[in-house]
């Protein structure tokens, strides 16, 4: 997965988990240790896809405008990259058996990757992140009390 896709998913997670707030690219960038400049480009693409909207001015930033239950990771990734690119034959009409064999292997891996990303919605991500946060908090509390 390319860096822009990962950033987009992190940004959407931040925005979708804070539906009542506008969040700046600086704030998201700080949290995920990435430049605001790179993030701004990502947000532009997400805005064009209708997943976020920007509010200008003091206290402005971005808010989530998509449907977290309907938006899958694959929906987001496909905004930034062609996920079939790793398994394309340069010219199928003259491809050797070795190239076809490699194509089949790459396609198998790609199919698994795409179906995994397609099966995970932002809502599912949020649910699992919340659960992970709870477990981490509980362990931290237990360690502090030990």
């Amino acid at each position, binding site marked *: 997965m390319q860096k822009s896709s990962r950033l987009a998913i992190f940004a959407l997670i931040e925005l979708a988990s804070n539906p009542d707030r506008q969040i700046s690219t600086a704030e998201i960038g700080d949290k995920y240790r990435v430049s605001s400049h790179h993030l701004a480009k990502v947000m532009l693409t997400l805005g064009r896809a209708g997943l976020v909207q920007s509010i200008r001015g003091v206290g402005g930033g971005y808010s989530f405008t998509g449907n977290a239950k309907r938006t899958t990771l694959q929906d987001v990734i496909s905004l930034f990259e062609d996920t079939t690119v790793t398994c394309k034959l340069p010219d199928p009409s003259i491809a050797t058996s070795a190239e076809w064999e490699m194509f089949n292997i790459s396609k198998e891996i790609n199919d698994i990757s795409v179906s995994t990303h397609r099966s995970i*919605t932002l809502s599912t991500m949020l649910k699992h992140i919340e659960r992970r946060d709870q477990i981490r908090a509980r362990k931290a509390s237990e360690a502090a009390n030990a």
Partner: protein
Amino acid sequence: MVEFAAKTAPELELLIRKVTIDDLDLVNDLDARITGVDKREYWRDMIDRVATRRAGERFFLIAKPCNDTVKCPALGIIIGEIRGWEFGSDPCGWIFAASVDLDYREQGIGEQMFKAICEEFRAVGTETVRTMVRRDDQINMSFFRSEGMSAGPYTQLEINLNER
């Protein structure tokens, strides 16, 4: 088996309990509504198998509205069993069927049935639950994912004998 009333989305209370042969029509009707295929004899055999052989390790649950009268339709079913030693695996729970009425989806019925069957597995000492889903079956893939399942240590492999 613990029968319990589960809260789902607005004002729908569920009773999730083990299927009996008296539920045959309800189960078959539910499945026929979803798949369009009447498989009455298949379901009769399935209910009989779960009830009479390795009954303590096989679980066939039905979700109904809380007022569990004969006339109430089945809203969902889930079936699983403990299987062990195949493919070098220790015994674990397998869910091999789960269905929710098309008109009642996204109301938490699948989730409540999943929790109920996991409790059954847990009660007999199982810590791992598995299932198998077609990669292109996005509805079921998304459902099991949302319940916390992820890829396990096994990969399913197959061969088309006609291409060999």
